[in-house]
């Protein structure tokens, strides 16, 4: 059982568009390991998480962009990334997250 894929499968069955965000790499100290994922549906539902809660809002926006037709993207959040100060990564690491529309 995987609650994220479970929800994605039911959204797709209902004919809703969805995007999946997966942690693919964690540098230094991050709370959640590679493979942790979060999914978003076109009507704004969210399941799962990719960090301790600090980058989820940013990833949500990216997932929405993917649903609306933006291509798959590899994103990085962390102290080495200017954007991360805005995001406020509390755990002091860098996480790389792949965001894709679920059209497969």
């Amino acid at each position, binding site marked *: *059982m*995987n*609650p*994220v*894929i*479970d929800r*994605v*499968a039911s959204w*797709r*069955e209902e004919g809703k568009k969805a995007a999946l965000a*997966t942690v*693919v*790499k*964690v540098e*230094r*100290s*991050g*709370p*959640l*390991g*590679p*493979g*942790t994922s979060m999914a978003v549906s076109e009507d704004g539902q969210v399941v799962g998480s990719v960090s301790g809660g600090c980058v989820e809002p940013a990833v949500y926006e990216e997932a929405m962009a993917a649903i609306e037709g933006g*291509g*798959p993207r*590899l994103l990085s959040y962390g102290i080495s990334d200017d954007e991360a100060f805005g995001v406020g990564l509390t755990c*002091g*690491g860098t996480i790389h997250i*792949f965001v*894709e529309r*679920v*059209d*497969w």
Partner: protein
Amino acid sequence: MADLLSRWHTALAEQSPVAMATVIQGPEGYLGGKVLVFPEDHTGTAGNAELDKAVVETARGLLEGGRTETVHLGPRGQRRMEDVAVFIQSFAPPPRMYVFGAIDFASAVARAGKFMGYRVIVCDARAVFATRERFPSADEIVVAWPDEFLKTAEVDGRSVIAVLTHDPKFDVPVLKEALKTPAGYIGAMGSRRTHDNRTARLKEEGVTDEQLARVSSPIGLDIGARTPEETAIAIAAEIVALRTGHSGGRLAERSGPIHWAAPDTRTRDGVK
């Protein structure tokens, strides 16, 4: 629902082994390519048949150990090139925990095993002890001689074997059998005296020092545990520490990153 998602979802629901490979970096047209890999079969594509062949082969290797990694390949699956990064996530069935000796401590260890996501199998030769009533949380309860049972049991590198009988009559044969397996953790309960006695008997039976080094005996981290529940936590903590290569001890008393260098990136049913 599309085929890839549907088959992935089904495999996860059935807890059958599956790996999902996704191209996360690469030339235009490759990015986002996906191959769903089963032990005997695969579906989807990373971009072309040659790349798929390399991805499928790599994914099966990772899946066997329940490992999740990013691998780098050439656009045609070349091993020494780095143009294409493929994230391969393994979803292996839950690892197994074998608990030998249906004593009170075993019940707590079985519960801790379930809590950590193990498939827990309790085995004891004595039918009066190995009962469902005593082990409501165990996935399987087996009445058999531990060493006989272990000979036919499925054990891999993620498996845990906890020998809690602390009776040499049971301990010695089952530990000898355990040492023939690739189990990732082998622990044996007992006082210092039981431990010394058991070690001597194992050596008499031809077990080498190198083999004995694989056995956590006396079992568990030194946290002063007394009750079955506390002891189960000490054992659970040792299982995690050995797997991740950490030494145990208080984070408050050391500095540096908490989740350093974890080579362990396994996922069980996909939930970390």
